[in-house]
């Protein structure tokens, strides 16, 4: 499979603080690529730079052949971003929110209807989609937001803690949905503190610490390299 995302020499400075220090990785079509690391490692900053909402201090990001830094508008049409603490417009109804997103992404009414139906199914919210988002539980809101993130079948879905706030069954549903969408070619750039989730979902993983990538490989390769039984041990080894 071809690379959908190529990141090279990517850095981000906030004044004197170097949040990301010249990292590089790539994500193939249909692949789930995870960034793991402790808090403040630079994961969210990296995801935000790829999502075009932060500008890199240095380096290059190429999405589907487009230079994200010089042509963010074209990049935005090909990606979707689910931030860790994302919210939705509370005064809107669930269906209204999804329709708004569909109308922004697609000119064609047929595609709008199609993606709206797809989102309704992914969310699993049924009739509750006709209720105000302000009345949703945290888990329901997260499902709605995930549905919003992948309803447009983007080339790249950037998911920061996608199952945050979900119960076990909800989280399982979401993971299955992500897997299903990647089978149709969608690439996923993922970040999560749940190592079981990372191990279950990811094809490849990069361990990032203090703005630098320390290791990249499949979960099995990383475990073998660090002599660990699971990814939590790999994580701990790098973080120490």
């Amino acid at each position: 499979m071809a690379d959908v995302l190529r990141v090279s020499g990517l850095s981000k400075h906030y004044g004197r603080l170097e949040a990301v220090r010249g990292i590089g990785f790539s994500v193939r079509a249909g692949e789930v690529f995870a960034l793991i690391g402790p808090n403040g490692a630079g994961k969210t900053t990296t995801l935000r730079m790829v999502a075009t909402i932060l500008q890199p201090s240095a380096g290059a990001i190429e999405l589907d052949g487009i230079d994200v830094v010089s042509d963010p508008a074209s990049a935005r049409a090909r990606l979707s971003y689910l931030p860790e603490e994302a919210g939705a417009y509370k005064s809107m109804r669930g269906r209204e929110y999804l329709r708004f997103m569909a109308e922004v992404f697609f000119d064609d009414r047929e595609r709008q209807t199609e993606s709206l139906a797809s989102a309704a199914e992914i969310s699993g919210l049924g009739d509750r989609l006709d209720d105000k988002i302000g009345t949703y539980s945290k888990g329901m809101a997260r499902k709605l937001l995930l549905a919003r993130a992948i309803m447009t079948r983007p080339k790249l879905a950037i998911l920061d803690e996608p199952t945050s706030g979900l119960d076990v069954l909800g989280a399982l549903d979401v993971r299955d949905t992500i897997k299903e969408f990647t089978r149709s070619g969608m690439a996923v750039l993922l970040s999560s503190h749940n190592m079981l989730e990372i191990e279950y979902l990811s094809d490849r993983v990069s361990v990032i610490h203090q703005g630098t990538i320390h290791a990249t490989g499949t979960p099995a390769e990383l475990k073998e390299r660090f002599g660990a039984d699971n990814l939590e041990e790999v994580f701990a080894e790098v973080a120490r």
Partner: protein
Amino acid sequence: MRRFLVLLRKEVKELITPQILLPFVITIMMFAVIGQVVGAEGEEAAANRRLALLDRDRTEASSALRAAIEGAGFTIEEAADDDAGEAARALSASGGSILVVVPEGYGAALGDATPARIEVYSVIRTFSVMSGQDSAALSAALLQVEQTVAQEVMTEHAAAIDPAFIKDPLAVVDHVMVGDRQAQVSRDTVMAFISTQTMLVPIVLFVVVMFAAQMVAVAIATEKENKTLETLLAMPISRSAIVTAKMMAAGLVALVSAAAYMVGMNIYMKGLMEGFGETGTSTSAATAFADQLGLTLGVGDYAMLGLSMFAAILVALVISLILGAFAENVKAVQSLITPMIVLLMVPYFVSMFVDVNSLAPVARWTVLAIPFTHAFLAAPNLFLGNAHMVLLGAAYELAWFAVLVVVAGRIFSSDRLLTMRLNLAKLKKQR
């Protein structure tokens, strides 16, 4: 364009929430209700005017005085005591408000053409404007009596002289000049006319700008507070479309709100006028001198006035948008937009009380540097035929707008929107 309209629809819907609508509807209803209540109270008070009369003269002249007071709509009750002081105390104790005492010798004094006395006792229980209406009506009735008496005395004792001459020996004829035009009218009349013509402009402008500024700043801060901003920024909509949609939605909602506010205000003022017994007077005389002096506005003038006001609203919107971008949450918005409200209030009050051009140079240029000043000065300038000043002012406002739009665009296209946050409460704590 289609995406922009989708976004604009969403922004308008977000702004029209019960939290925003409810205080608004309540304010308008309050204005209307207060106007109606005051109006009804005034009408009722006018229909139930009462006073106590102590007639110690009991002559034909005092009877004529009684008839004149009754003619002014008062129901007369006889005073409770023959002594004026006691009668006044009894009036106060019984809840009455006015006692008129006609002393003995009133009629005789008038017959001898010597000054006669009437004593009026007023009990003050409140300082409301409405409470003074009875006294005003009595004063008008007494003035009428005085003029009638004066006329009679002059006819009887100075038949050789025209009573009109004695009453008004020096006729002052006022002429007012505006530019090279002039009319026979008093300066006060012209000022009152211009005041009624231009009174609404600064109020409308102030209300619209305040509402629009708050709405747009709150719209941005809400996106941050509800964590929807990052998603919005990663969507395939240009940053300029996001900025414009937010400003336009706030402007539209503010305009509609201001229109509703003005309707409420109108009902309120109408109620008040009815309460004070004032009705719309014929304006034909007023327009006659206004035409002579060129103090009328044509379609082009109104277009220029609209342009100046619209430009001021745009400037307020973009300033608020920038300030809202620095707010960490909705609470912080109120503090952050205070500088803009001050910028708005300075020209509002200055132009209300003084001529900006008569200020000392530093003060004058400082006030003129504020873009909103030119919108407040537009209506008076148009009446004085200074259209070029209005156009220059509007151009100055639009120049501010253009610069600020570039600044806003830079902020929205950069990391600052997400990374720069001002939390005034936190800053105060840190101090």
